[in-house]
């Protein structure tokens, strides 16, 4: 197994853990944490392909990861603000009890 494949396997496992947490946990905050883990797994893939790719001097993968980190920070801020607003409205962050839009 080459180092690139090791990185890809770690990233795939991290993505699967984040996906499992995001779809199975009842707490809205932990669903957001799962999404963050999935974003980080994608970032690890970018860094691995940048490091072991044919043209690492172009810095493309690194630039994508820098912008991706900035976007993930914005996403976390807006998502947690939404969770706080939802908690103020429903008095809970349990995703199974927030179902008023279901009709």
């Amino acid at each position, binding site marked *: *197994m*080459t180092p*690139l*494949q*090791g990185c890809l*396997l*770690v990233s*795939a*496992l*991290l*993505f*699967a*853990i*984040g*996906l499992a*947490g995001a*779809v*199975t*946990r*009842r*707490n809205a*905050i*932990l669903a*957001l*944490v*799962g999404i963050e*883990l999935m974003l*980080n797994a994608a*970032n*690890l893939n970018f*860094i691995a392909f940048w*490091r*072991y790719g*044919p043209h*690492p*001097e172009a*810095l493309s993968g*690194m*630039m994508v*990861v*820098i*912008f991706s*980190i*900035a976007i*993930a*920070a*914005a996403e*976390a*801020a*807006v998502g*947690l*603000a939404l*969770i*706080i*607003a939802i*908690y*103020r409205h429903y008095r809970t*962050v349990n*995703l*199974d009890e927030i179902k008023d839009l279901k009709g």
Partner: protein
Amino acid sequence: MSPAFVIIAFVTLFAAAAAMSLRNLVHCALSLVVALAGLAALYLQLGAQFVGFAQILVYVGAVAILIVFAVLLTRSDATPNQAILAPGWIVGILVSAVVFATLGWAALNSTGLPKEMSPAPEATVRNIGDQLMTQYVLPLEVIGLLLTAALIGAVIIAMKEEPQKTRIEDGRLKMEKPSGPSSILHPPSSSGGHA
């Protein structure tokens, strides 16, 4: 595959699994910090110093604090008595396992991956700054705009709604009513229009 990589990867994956499976939300947040720091160590080991330190600053420093504050503000720091997993969680676990199997199979069996390691690239902060200011200057500006808009939006969303707001607006409306035209949407018909 150096031993350091294997150790860091195991710590990261274990902490991520703990962050997704513990009952107490504060413990979950702390495990998440460990997982994100392990990812930063992986970046450093892969030769991406700037990204590794940015990961520590942004994730370990800011996002983890945000999550801890959200746990605090929603008063969900107590260990829940009921089940922590949603009904139908077995389907979610199965879907995740299928996703991991597919990704892992693709990573292990792909023939297009480069076999030999290229020499470690030169990625100094100076190079990154040069690239950010020349080739990637437009994405940089767009990211700045996005961050500004997202943070203002987050403040507005999380702002406390004031119950007296409608009353004040009604009072202002009543006071403004007698003086002059109240709206620009209905201009007088005699002066408007085309000649």
